């Protein structure tokens, strides 16, 4: 019990392996039994550009063209990926969660509770569930606000919500409020969140 090999193999490797099997391999295997857990690639996710993305092109034609060319599924995919990268890099996910629980009236506040299959896609690898809500959950954020609202909000959250403690992201926008490439992308990504709701349920 108190010798090197037991400690190394039984405690070190063995106990780790048991937990690995029970709390990781097993759920990974059984998740597929409950739901249609088909993985959705970026091409599939971005096949049809969202109308918010198309609207950005209409409202800011020159800036949009400079950033992405035309709004099609290729540029939509690019914007989604960059938006996600910014969301990760700026640690938005440490202030905003991305899953709605079935308790504490969350369905009333945020929308339908989350299901595993919504997260089985390229934009959730790794997932961005988060463990802290300084701001509200964002998993049903699509369409909650208009693009214009987001532009104004990212420029200065406090102007929109007086008590907000969210940082300003003005550097993603020109001085007159026109989004730069980063600005377009973060709005595109935020306006995507919730698109996969209900996926794989009959």
């Amino acid at each position: 019990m108190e010798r090197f090999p037991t400690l190394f193999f039984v405690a070190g490797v063995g106990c780790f392996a048991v937990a690995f099997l029970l709390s990781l391999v097993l759920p990974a295997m059984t998740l597929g039994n409950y739901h249609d857990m088909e993985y959705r690639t970026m091409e599939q996710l971005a096949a049809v550009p969202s109308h918010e993305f198309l609207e950005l092109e209409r409202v800011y034609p020159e800036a949009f063209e400079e950033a992405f060319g035309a709004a099609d599924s290729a540029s939509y995919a690019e914007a989604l990926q960059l938006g996600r990268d910014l969301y990760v890099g700026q640690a938005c996910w440490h202030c905003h969660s991305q899953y709605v629980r079935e308790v504490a009236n969350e369905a009333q506040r945020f929308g339908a509770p989350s299901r595993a299959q919504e997260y089985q896609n390229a934009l959730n690898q790794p997932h961005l569930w988060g463990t802290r809500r300084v701001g509200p959950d964002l998993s049903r954020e699509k369409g909650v606000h208009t693009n214009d609202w987001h532009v104004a909000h990212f420029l200065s959250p406090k102007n929109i919500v007086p008590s907000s403690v969210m940082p300003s992201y003005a550097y993603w926008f020109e001085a007159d409020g026109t989004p730069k490439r980063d600005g377009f992308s973060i709005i595109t990504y935020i306006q995507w969140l919730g698109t996969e709701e209900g996926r794989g349920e009959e």
Partner: protein
Amino acid sequence: MSSAALATNDLPDLTRTEGRSLVEYGLVRAHIAAAGVALAISMTAGFLYSLQFLGWFPFADEYLSPGHLRLVHTNLAAYGWLVNGFTAMTYYVIPRLTGQRVWSAKIGWLIFWVWQFILVATVSGFLMNKAQAIEWGETPTGFRPGTFELNWIPVDLLVVIGAVLLIVQLMVPLYRARDQKFYVTLWYFTAGLVWLALTYLMGNVIPEWVLPGAAGAATTGLFIHDLVGLYVTPMGWGLMYFFVPLILQKPIWSHSLSVIGFWALAFFYPLGGVHHFLLSPIPDYVEFGAITTTIAIEVVVTTVVVNFFMTLKGKTSALRDSFAIRWFYVGAVMYFITCLQCSFQVTWTFQKIIHFTDWVVAHAHLIMFGTFTFWLFGTIDWLWPRVTKRKWYSRNLRAWHFWLSTMAIVIMFVDLTIAGLIAGFMQRELNPWNDILDASLPFWWVRTFSGAMMIAGLFCGLYNMYMTCRHGEPYDETESLIPLSAD
């Protein structure tokens, strides 16, 4: 008396063959110093981030943004402070308990510099938006998501290299001593080093490359949990089992309780991983398993804490005379509180309200600062004169460090716990988000204030360490014998 204890009883003769010392003091000093610097930066980042909550954040550029500073805060606390600190201590403790030198001093310096380079690459990577989306594993992969194109220094890879070297470095003396019956500390260190390697690989590879979504979340939950439970906790307890008997000059109270504590930790602790994402799309039966084992851990924790308090019995004056013992036992009390809290907050009843709120932040600081940081402070307090061969420069500064830190963490904990309850209930009652922010604001002021106290305490400690090197009186006590074994 076991051979491990005998090995340590050779202590007065720390110089072994070829006139080289058993312990690589240079490495111990260097890792302690690096740990101190990392903690100072981490706390400053945490402090600046807390100003964002008051609307006082001083910078407005893309690089020094609040989100980036939060990443710097938590990652330097983990990889800069705790890892450097524990590494320093293992360099000191393992050779003394096994009677064997580490693998190589040269490799030791290589590891040291690789590790500090990792920290620099991580922090600068954060400022350049390169974080990885894995909580507590945000160290940049260096690859563009989903591809093998490099877009930053591949920090994760360096961490693997550094960790593997470090593990070999420390496993060599353990392996050479494989015929001995190990002392408790070495149980924790042996298993903890294996766990560190497995945990890091699992957490950084699987969610990023193998399992997306909910199954990936089960993995990152396990990762967060294992990093704390299977690396930080074993290292911390290993140190306590070494330093407490050494300083109190008496063996640990019960050997059987140590055995129970160790094996129960090894078995139950990793099973609780999913408890970081409760009431989530992860299947309920997995959540129930995690909840049950988390509650079971409380029993284990109680045995260990009881063992330590019984050891203190009859020697309580040490709480007054020895700063190290003070740090250790105050830390142990906070450990007990945190773990007791665990067994309640892990239930769905509590989760409904407190998850996502400041309650969890209070909990995280109580364990990371109140316990593990306190234990490292305690070991540093005892060790610094011995590795620098200088007496402490100022006893007052040691006391200030202790009292400021203790008051700060108590204030921060109580404050954020209440804030979490208020915000949690307000969320449930569907209050507008604006009102929740208004209600939290006073508590965020107190948090920043307690953070300032914490920093003030730390700077007393760091200044004292620096002045000890520069102006401390010479110190050369022959190191005393250690009655480590209870059998």
